[in-house]
Structure formats: C-alpha cells, structure tokens
C-alpha cells in the first residue's frame, strides 16, 4: 500500500509529463492540415506545426507581416533583418513565395482566403469563443496584434494549448472569463491530453492521448464534454519526424 501510495503521488507530481508533449501536440495538429492548405501559425507551439506536416503534403505558410511562402529559419548567411515572421523572428522565403503590404496581407485574412490558423489560447469556451490576448488585468499593457483579425477571417481555427493552466485551472470552460479575441471562432482544440471538436451541440472529445481516460480529461475541464462514439487513443511517435 505504501508503495502504491508513493507511486500515486509520483504520478500526480508527473501530471505535466503525461499525455502528449509540445512536439506531439504540434504533430497531432499537423495531421489535420490538408495538402495544399494556406496556413498561418501563431507564436509558440503553433510554430512547431510546420515541422510535422506529413510527407507528401505541400502546405504554404502565410505570415501576416507580408509573406506567403515562409520557409525555415535562415542560416547565418541567409539572415536578413528585413525578412521576419509575425513573431519578429528571422525566416526565409521559399521559391514561389510572394511579398505584399499589410493591407493586402489582411485582405487575405479578412477575406477568408487563409484555410487554417493555429493559435494558442488562454481560455476556450464551449461555444468556441477564444480568449488569448488579455487577462483583463488593470495594470497590463494591452496588446492584440493580428489575433482578432485571424479568428474573424480564417476559415478554420485550430487551438493548441496545455489542457490546464500551470496552476491546474481549467482553460476549457462554459464561458471565458477573460476578454474575448473572438466569438464562436474555434473549430478544434489540441491539448496535451486530447483532441476536442467544437460543435453546435457542444464540445466533443474525439481523441485521447495514450493512457488518458475520458474521466481524467473531464475532471480538468470546466464544462461537460461529450465523447464521440469511438474515441481513439492516438499513439504519436516521440515528436520526431
């Protein structure tokens, strides 16, 4: 019993390590991006999605600061401070890329021309509302960037996020308490524990990370989840491609 208790405690302490890691979350999301998609990736884990596009698919990356056909990070030789992404990191441009100004770039976004946008989240509601720009704290410097334009204009919005906050609070809720980025905009949520679809009838758990149960996810979620008839346990590789 003593041994078991210790084992349980250890398991609790290791909660952050169970389920999918950051690489695997990105890899799982990448599986849902179709060949030929035009994709905008947010800062953080979403950026990693580009590394896991399955073989045989060609995906074109849009960065809202004026480039379609964003490539990998540059070598030292390729580095140009005038060639950056929306996170202000140095990038490259692939053959077949195009530069354009901010007006045209957000015409692509607002005009529903970008197929998929992958973003991080502070909170997501059962209706697909997203909060990812402000905690509403009085002394914070508000900063929104292109997030509101992206969620309003891009056809499909994927969210990649840890299932709970660092302190264990649920991020998937009946209603967001933080100021919204957009209303009814999220299509699918990829967490370290599972994949959840936002459907008109509510949140539908469609996939579990290996070793994770529905109840385990439900306990860490602020709203009642439904479960698809056949929830698969997707056993991704270790994040290598």
């Amino acid at each position, binding site marked *: 019993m003593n041994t078991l208790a210790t084992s349980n405690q250890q398991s609790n302490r290791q909660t952050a390590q169970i389920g999918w890691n950051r690489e695997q979350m990105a890899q799982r999301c990448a599986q849902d991006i179709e*060949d030929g998609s035009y994709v905008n990736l947010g800062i953080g884990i979403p950026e990693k999605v580009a590394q896991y596009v399955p073989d045989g698919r060609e995906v*074109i990356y849009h960065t809202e600061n004026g480039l379609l*056909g964003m490539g990998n990070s540059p070598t030292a030789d390729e580095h140009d401070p005038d060639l950056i992404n929306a996170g202000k990191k140095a990038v490259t441009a692939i053959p*077949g890329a195009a530069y*354009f100004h901010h007006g045209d770039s957000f015409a692509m976004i607002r005009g529903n*021309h*970008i197929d998929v946008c992958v973003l991080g989240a502070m909170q997501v509601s059962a209706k697909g509302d997203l909060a990812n720009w402000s905690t509403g704290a009085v002394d914070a410097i508000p900063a929104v960037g292109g997030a509101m334009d992206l969620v309003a204009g891009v056809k499909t919005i994927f969210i990649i996020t840890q299932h709970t906050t660092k302190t264990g609070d649920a991020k998937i809720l009946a209603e967001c308490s933080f100021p919204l980025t957009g209303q009814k905009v999220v299509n699918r949520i990829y967490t370290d524990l599972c994949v959840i679809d936002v459907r008109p009838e509510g949140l539908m758990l469609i996939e579990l990370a290996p070793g994770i149960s529905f109840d385990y996810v439900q306990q860490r979620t602020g709203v009642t989840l439904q479960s698809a008839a056949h929830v698969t346990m997707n056993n991704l590789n270790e994040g290598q491609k």
Partner: protein
Amino acid sequence: MIDKRVASCASAVANIKDGDTIMIGGFGEAGSPIELIHALIDHGAKNLTVVNNNTGSGRVGLAALIENGQVAKMICSYPRTANSLVFPELYRSGKIALELVPQGTLAERIRAGGAGIPAFFTKTSVGTPLADGKELRNFEGENYVMERGLKADFALIKAKQADRYGNLTFNKTARNFAPIMAMAAKNTLVQTNEMVELGAIDAENVITPGIFVNGIIEVSKPQQESQLVKDGVVYLPIKSQGAEK
C-alpha cells in the same frame, strides 16, 4: 503537391453553373481572357450575372457570350463602346438587365468583396441618380453613399506569367481589374501567356499571389479581340459549329 494547372480551357470552366456570378477581367480588350470566355460559351452555362467594366465588342469574347443568351445581368460602368453591338440591342429589348456602377466604385466593391469588407462609404455618386435608394451618411460635414462589397462564384482573368502555385504577373494596362477580381471570386481561373517555374517570378514582383488562384491554363498565343472584330469573326459555340457542318 500544389499544381493549379488544368488540362484545357474547357476543363477550367467545367464547374461553372447556371445562375453563377462571373467576374471577367479586362478593360476593353486589354486583359480580356478571350479563350476562357469562348470556353464558357461552349460550356453553355446560362442565367449568368457578369461583372466587367464593359460589355464586349463585335461578336466575339464577352459580346458573344451575351449574344449567346447566357447573361441575364451585366454589372458594369460603361456598357457602350466602339463596336459594341450586342448589348445595346438586347438591353433596349429588355432581354438583359444592367446594374450601372461608377468605375471606381465598381473596383472598390470588388476589392471590398475580396478583402472581407461587406460595405464601405464613398463620395462617388452622391447627388446623382446612381445614389438613388442608397444609404447616405455624413462624416465630418461631407455626404457619402454606402456601397456593398461584391463577390463572385468565378473570375476569369488573363495573366502574362504564372507558376504552379498560381502566382501571377500581368502585361501593362492589361492588369486592370484582374488582381481584385482574383480576390473576390471563390474560384479564379487564369489563362496565362506563359507558365514559368516556381521562383522564376521574383517574390517582390508577384502581383497576384497564388492564394487567390484556383486554375491555370497556358494560352501562349491568345487571340486579340480587336483583330477578330476587324476580321468580322463571329464566335459560335462548338456545339452550334458542329451542328452546322
């Protein structure tokens, strides 16, 4: 792999349906995608709403599409041009509808449609019959009229160069409406004088990024509308041509 090339003009236009709204590039003959228009005539889709600055000339291209009875309504700024025979006759006999739009308002409505803007305000046409029935609004002491964004099911345009992603360049003033129509249409079909390798168009010089393009067909020696008109050519749909033999 992304490869937007299609096998023929006929296959490019194959999915156009009766009742669709079609934007057609060109200002007069400059930029008119005449081979794609002729393919649409062969295709036969009817009851179309067509957006173009003009109504074509002679009995080829857009004029032939209208003459073939496929166009229920034109949205344009200048339906009268030299050698414009077909539209005036049908219009006077009440067989075709016309929505007359100032040229810049037409351009901005198309650009708005492509940019996700459902409506905007402009000073153009305030105090004229073309503002009749439209919402007026005063901003800082000036009156403006509200105009709506314009979208289409298909755009047919003509480019100078294209790559397999659909990046485009144009030739001189043949550019005109093509880049904004490519933005405003759900499906943009391009006839290009030349297909080039990816990267052959400098990323700085791409005029229409491939994201706005769905199908490309190379037409390396396009016909010139003015020459056809001069030669008295009458374009007849392939079926009719066949039937006549």
